[in-house]
């Protein structure tokens, strides 16, 4: 053993202030796990909700502080260049947290379904007597809160990782809690467990592709840092083939998380089977994180080779928009409809990403936030329409809801109009932003397909609206639960932001514009 060994390793400087938001989330998640271990059962729920919300609000405050103290203008790398603190990173971290807070409100709701939307003990055999007993009496387990904090912390790390290895660890850190949370539904537990196993197996498979891609890129560039890969793309004497194999494998891993066609097959099953608040979290926050990773990889590591790969990803974007929209038309379940709509929306964001210039970044960031708020509110409303079996998600059960619950139907109609891209909603401004960025980037074909698919996608949305208002309610029509304070808050935030960003988009678009500069 070399005696001078200890001397020649120097720990890299870690700028703890700049990465504080991530540390707060992960640290508070550990506090949550400890609370779960040491607190009496009755205290756990209020403490966990408090810890969860405090962590996210504190993280958000720190991010705003960092943004105001000019980290967005003067980006830095820290922890041995493993983490980038730059405009898009901070914006995406903030977006994950803002959406995460709203999703946490939905997760914490306990009055719509008595005891909450999650199972008390996931290990009890589904369908057994003990299961029926716990579904009636026992409140939800509270491990869901530390798990969601870990997931959010992992997403924040994912969008600011500056090398592939850190990005991979972050991918796993945010995926693993999501796999678990999918399995914890209180009702229809077999569906929920099936969803979790599906998501876990396919997710593990896509992670394997991601790692394989990292190996190829390491072979190509001799480094896993994005900057080094970008340099090697210009100056390396090695065959480009290695880089493109690596990029293809990386893209498979990332597009899987973003639910782009043809890597989308898990989405409808998982969105349908998972507890609806978790589905809301996945549809909003995971999408932000996945596209954060895609943006950083494409714009930092592979910017100079874009002429080679852009057509391929363009084809994927077209497929995603068109197939997502077509399959959405055929759905009869509201959760599956929203799942296919989220696939199509991944295509719209990808269109913005492929603009490959500054307003491509800012419009994608903007779109992710607008879509996140709308989809959170939509899934929040889905939790309210219930019959004795839990949520009534079949579309035929929604017939005539406009008469029974005019407020709910009104808000849902507004959200559907936003998804359809009607002016004065954030769906319109978001689509306008990504399509105009793509036009500016010379992606006219993508925009044509995008507009066509939005027209197509308007049909299933408007069909739900027609169903709610113009059809007679069935005799055994589901009831509409009165939302508790937490769900009401989440719904109000979602709907108000959808309206606000529709009439006054510049309030967020300006922030996104000033943030749209990656550090390499």
């Amino acid at each position, binding site marked *: *053993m*070399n005696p001078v*060994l200890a001397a*020649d*390793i*120097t*720990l*890299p400087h*870690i700028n703890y202030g700049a990465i504080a938001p991530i540390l707060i989330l*992960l640290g508070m*998640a*550990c506090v949550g*796990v400890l609370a*779960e271990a040491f607190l009496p059962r009755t205290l756990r729920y209020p403490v966990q909700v408090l810890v969860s919300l405090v962590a996210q609000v504190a993280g958000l405050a720190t991010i705003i502080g960092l943004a105001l103290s000019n980290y967005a203008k003067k980006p830095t790398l820290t*922890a*041995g*260049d*493993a*983490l980038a603190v730059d405009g898009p990173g901070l914006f995406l971290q903030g977006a994950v947290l803002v959406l995460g807070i709203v999703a946490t409100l939905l997760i914490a709701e306990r009055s719509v379904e008595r005891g909450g939307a999650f199972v008390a*003990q*996931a*290990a*009890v055999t589904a*369908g*057994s*007597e003990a299961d029926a007993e716990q579904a009636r009496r026992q409140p939800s*387990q509270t*491990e869901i809160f*530390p*798990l969601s904090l*870990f997931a959010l*912390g*992992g997403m924040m*790390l994912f969008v600011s990782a500056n090398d592939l*290895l*850190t990005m991979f*660890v*972050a991918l*796993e*850190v945010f995926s*693993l*809690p999501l*796999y*678990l949370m999918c*399995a*914890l539904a209180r009702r229809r537990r077999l569906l929920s467990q099936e969803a979790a196993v599906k998501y876990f197996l396919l997710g593990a498979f896509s992670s*394997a592709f991601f790692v*394989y891609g990292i190996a*190829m890129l390491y*072979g*190509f560039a001799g480094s896993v840092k994005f900057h080094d890969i970008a340099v090697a793309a210009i100056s390396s004497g*090695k*065959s480009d*083939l*290695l880089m493109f*194999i690596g990029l293809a494998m990386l893209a498979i891993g990332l597009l899987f998380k973003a639910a782009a066609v043809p890597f989308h097959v898990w989405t409808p099953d998982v969105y349908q089977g998972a507890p609806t608040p978790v589905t809301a979290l996945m549809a909003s926050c995971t999408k932000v994180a996945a596209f954060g990773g895609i943006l950083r990889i494409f714009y930092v590591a592979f910017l100079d080779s874009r002429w080679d790969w852009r057509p391929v990803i363009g084809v994927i974007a077209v497929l995603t928009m068109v197939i997502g929209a077509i399959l959405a038309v055929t759905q009869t379940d509201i959760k599956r409809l929203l799942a296919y709509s989220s696939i199509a929306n991944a295509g719209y964001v990808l269109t913005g990403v492929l603009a490959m210039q500054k307003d491509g970044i800012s419009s994608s960031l903007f779109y992710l936030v607008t879509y996140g708020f709308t989809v959170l509110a939509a899934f929040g409303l889905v939790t309210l329409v219930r019959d004795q079996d839990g949520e009534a998600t079949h579309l035929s059960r929604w017939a005539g809801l406009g008469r029974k619950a005019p407020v709910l139907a009104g808000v849902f109609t507004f959200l559907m109009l936003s998804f359809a891209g009607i002016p004065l909603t954030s769906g319109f401004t978001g689509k306008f932003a990504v399509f105009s960025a793509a036009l500016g980037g010379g992606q006219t074909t993508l925009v044509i397909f995008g507009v066509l698919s939005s027209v197509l996608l308007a049909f299933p949305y408007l069909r739900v609206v027609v169903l709610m208002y113009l059809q007679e309610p069935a005799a055994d029509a589901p009831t509409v639960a009165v939302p508790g304070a937490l769900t009401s808050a989440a719904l109000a935030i979602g709907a108000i932001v959808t309206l606000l960003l529709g009439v006054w988009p510049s309030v967020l678009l300006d922030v996104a514009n000033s943030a749209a500069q990656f550090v390499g």
Partner: protein
Amino acid sequence: MTHVLAHPLAGQVLALASPGAMGTGEKVAFWVLGIIALGCAIAMVAARNAMHSALFLVVTMFCLGIFYIIQAGPFIGMAQIIVYTGAIMMLFLFVLMLVGRDVSDSLIETLRGQRTAGILVGLGLAGLLGGGIARALGSIDAKGLEQANATHGGNVPGLAALMFTRYVFAFEVTSALLITAAVGAMILAHVQRNGEKKTQKEQSRERFAEGNHPAPKAGPGVFAHSNSVATPAILPDGTRSARSISPLVEPRELTAEDTRPKDTLTGGGNQ
């Protein structure tokens, strides 16, 4: 599958690229172990019994571990053998034993032609990747790990240097992953028992307590027209015994067709 397959492929290409750097012993070891690793990888996917699959995987991972050692990476090689082959796969075998080693996969294809299509696509992908990597690495002289190992005075110190400098954050964040895994295992596997378990004496007392039938419950279908599990037994006094059917099964009213005497001696049927 391609993941497992591609390792030997990549190794082969590397070895071909720098023939000068490869001694006879290394060549012999590579070809012998390479064939074993590849064969076992294929057998792992093809085996019907989960137990056999796991054992084939053990062999494949063991061979890979030796490859790593041959390629001047003793630490990762030993970690592969001790941690993966030794610990994780043995745990895996324990789990399989607990679940029941007779449990083999159902071989019914829910989508017709799925397996054939899967094999074809898998072979296509393997060919594409193998061909691509062979072309990409054809002109490269493999350097080996000697220089990298020498920088910090050995393979393990070199790994430590990387882990605690450039990748220190990734290394630390892995702890979040481990905590999540532990919490997840608890959530999915732990059942809290409410109250004390009854002792045999207490159960016996309860059985002979006032107002309880000490005899075994009547089985479903006893003295009834049908032996379906959904048909309650008819007690000697003519009442139906709710105790004879599982509370999870809905008691079913029998139709006239169900209760019609069926002449089983002459072969039954309609007449």
